[in-house]
């Protein structure tokens, strides 16, 4: 099953290289790569980095979603909802409007504030004196996200309507237009390192999904290990959000799809979520850049296609995972 998902990912990468609006809408014959230098440059300089970033985006959001759902014992958590997405948006807005920052500066600000969003949500949740742990996390996430979106709104209001505001709005729409090798290579080390960490700890994640006493009795250090995985997840999420903006639903839906297809054991479900997430984001982004003469914001497509895929899979008969070990 996992191999199948891997093949699916490679297939989507390969096809996506030849889908676009050059030389005519939807399909570029492969032999053009030999004959046409413009086609070569287009594929190498535009489509390849964009496909790479889309894959990293899908993998990071799906991986972070899986990790967070498991360590918070809550299947409704997604990487953005704990204040990370809104925090990163605020950071990017701050970078664009207040600091007049360039690409790297915006990315750094988005990354830092994404992490800050999570830290605020988490520490607020531990202090709320109402409801169980899950409810407190939900409430804290909502509160911190609201706080940061108020901040984003304020920065939008103060932004220069001719230069800064368009940049901010484009950023917030969640899209990969304008992604080049520079962006791809900037986020590559962080995301690759974080994803490698998650994959290495994939079985351990099961232990950290248990309650504290049981996890401790199994020889783990639950608080410390959860924090390490959380930091890796947030780092990857913040990195891709800083380049792509807020792309919703991937981090919530894909982990569910992976568990549905492969079973709950994270040893299989986590790599499955990464492969599925990568494929899903590449498919959505390919549609986003080739379906219409103008770009469709990626976030709209991930929600639209994700919601349909989610509905269909959840209504289908559950098939228990064939143990892939």
């Amino acid at each position, binding site marked *: 099953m996992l191999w199948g998902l891997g093949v699916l990912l490679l297939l989507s990468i390969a096809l996506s290289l030849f889908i676009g609006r050059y030389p005519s809408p939807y399909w570029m014959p492969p032999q053009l790569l030999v004959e046409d230098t413009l086609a070569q440059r287009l594929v190498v300089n535009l489509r390849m980095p964009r496909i790479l970033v889309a894959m990293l985006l899908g993998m990071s959001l799906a991986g972070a979603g899986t990790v967070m759902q498991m360590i918070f014992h809550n299947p409704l958590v997604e990487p953005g909802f704990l204040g990370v997405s809104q925090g990163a948006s605020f950071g990017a807005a701050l970078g664009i409007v207040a600091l007049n920052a360039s690409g790297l500066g915006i990315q750094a600000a988005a990354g830092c504030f994404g992490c800050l969003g999570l830290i605020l949500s988490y520490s607020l949740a531990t202090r709320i004196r109402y409801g169980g742990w899950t409810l407190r996390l939900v409430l804290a996430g909502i509160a911190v996200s609201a706080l940061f979106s108020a901040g984003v709104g304020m920065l939008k209001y103060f932004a220069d309507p001719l230069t800064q505001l368009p940049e901010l709005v484009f950023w917030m729409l969640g899209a990969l237009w304008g992604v080049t090798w520079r962006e791809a290579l900037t986020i590559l080390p962080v995301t690759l390192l974080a994803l490698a960490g998650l994959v290495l700890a994939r079985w351990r994640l*099961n232990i950290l999904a248990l309650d504290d006493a049981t996890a401790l*009795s199994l020889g783990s250090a639950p608080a410390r290990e959860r924090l390490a995985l959380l930091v890796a997840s947030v780092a990857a999420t913040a990195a891709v959000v800083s380049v792509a903006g807020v792309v919703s639903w991937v981090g919530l839906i894909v982990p569910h799809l992976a568990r549905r297809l492969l079973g709950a054991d994270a040893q299989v479900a986590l790599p499955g979520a990464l492969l599925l997430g990568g494929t899903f984001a590449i498919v959505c982004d390919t549609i986003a850049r080739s379906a219409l003469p103008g770009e469709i914001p990626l976030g709209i497509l991930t929600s639209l296609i994700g919601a349909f895929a989610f509905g269909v899979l959840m209504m289908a008969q559950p098939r228990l995972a064939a143990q892939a*070990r």
Partner: protein
Amino acid sequence: MTRIAEGSPMIALSAIRFTYDGRARTLFEGLSLEIPAGSITAILGPNGAGKSTLLHLILGMLKPRSGIVRLDGRPRHTYSRRALGRLVGMVAQTESIPFSFTVTDYVLLGRAPYLSPLGVPGLEDVRVAEEALARLGIEAMARRAIDTLSGGEQQLVVLARALAQQPRILLLDEPTAHLDLGNKGRVLRLVQEMVADGITAVFTTHEPDLVAAIADYVVLMRGGQTLAVGKMADVFTSQNLSQTYGVPVTVAQVAGRRIAIA
């Protein structure tokens, strides 16, 4: 009185002082207790007596303000986490399993102390897990999702996970609280078998009859105090139980076993 039996104890608490954060009342003040190896010890007392707290102090979930917990003669804090994982297993009161793991996946988690933090279970681990399932007679459930099982079946699966952990000390917090008579019997028999194989079991309960059924030793607790400690036959008396529960309790003999009637 702290010493229950001769010989070196498997678990020894000395002069434990413990207060929950943010609470004025000190729960344990100078608590000392020794639990003999290879026995079943019951911690019996009403709700709020400090039974679960005591288990969590032994496990290391909670840290005493002062005093020392020794396991197999060595202070608890001198063990590595993995070594502790191989030494002490825990069956919590209600173990929430939020995702639909298959039974085998879940039982395999018991192998964690034998793997490195980034390790994944191998064939030998799978064998141990399957053996644990077979021992409880639930190998037919191996492929089923845990959330499709009944509460009693789930408790058996949790025990199988603890069995796969192969600990030398097994702590059980209210192990039969939600079980019907049949599953209660199965759980108790398994604990007795594990102890016959050499492990030391400590369980908490507020049901006196459970104590009479399997315990070798009894610790009676009330309000953070140990009221009586010793062999079951000596401690399980009308007078002690009346004092523990604060209502008149009569201990009667039925079919060769003691039962408590309030």
